[in-house]
């Protein structure tokens, strides 16, 4: 362990902006992609169900 305190950990030896910026953006991009994927799936399912219903539905 190379950190003597939480403050030292968050300061990242003076590179806080760069290190946390990199990890933060990566985490944010992945979170957004996952969110968009679940919304895409919900949208596709909703559209297909609507289409199916307007066709008179399955017999």
């Amino acid at each position, binding site marked *: *362990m*190379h*950190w003597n305190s939480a403050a030292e*950990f968050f300061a*990242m*030896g*003076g*590179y806080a*902006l*760069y*290190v946390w*910026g*990199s*990890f933060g*953006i*990566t985490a944010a*991009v*992945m979170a957004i*992609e*996952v969110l968009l*994927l679940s919304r*895409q*799936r919900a949208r*596709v*399912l909703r559209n*297909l*169900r609507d*289409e*199916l219903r307007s066709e008179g539905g*399955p017999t």
Partner: protein
Amino acid sequence: MTTRAIHWFKFASPQNFYGLAGRLWPWFAALAAALMAVGLWISFFVAPTDAQQGQGYRIIFVHVPASQMSMFIYVVMAFWAGLGLAFNTRLSGMMASALAPTGALFAFLSLITGALWGKPMWGAWWVWDARLTSELILLFLYLGFLALQSSIDDPRRADKAGAVLALVGVVNVPIIYFSVQWWNTLHQGASVSLTRAPSMASTMLWGMLIMVVAFWMYTIAVALVRVRSIILERERHTEWVKHALE
């Protein structure tokens, strides 16, 4: 149907692959989450401070995996695209389409984390160095692929046009990879290579490799989820989709 041999071609049909992908993606997602947890732990608490770059080098644990994935995904995407072009298989084009957005995101992350690393170490967010420029071209190739596909309404024609672009663009991947050897770049050479011992502490190396595998698992999981949506949309007029929705 009595034979127990695995019929790989069975999964070339979108219907069968839809089910397979649905069963597989949670495993890849779980692996990605677990490996990322371990990788992050090593990144911040196990890997030592770098002698030259202090704590700033820790960006490597996201920069290298993101950059590698941006290149690998392109090659895999071009492979599927080429397969679709050669054999006219429907699923191949869907796989290529499912991979492209994630590849574009990793190319973007590679450039952003690279800028955040370049600023404190080189004193510049960006330089027109061969490595950086060819990676930027990779991002444009992804965006071009996505734009081209979305501009063509007929999915099969969109697949073909996209496949040609993907295959032509694949020449850029070895250029990125070898750019640090071919040209005098500000960007450093490879830290890890197959032919010589890695030039970094073993815990740093392990942390990086675990993050690389974690990003692989993440990519496979999101590509499988995305391809399921693509399959549903493109196969909407088939009986099996109608039954699956009930």
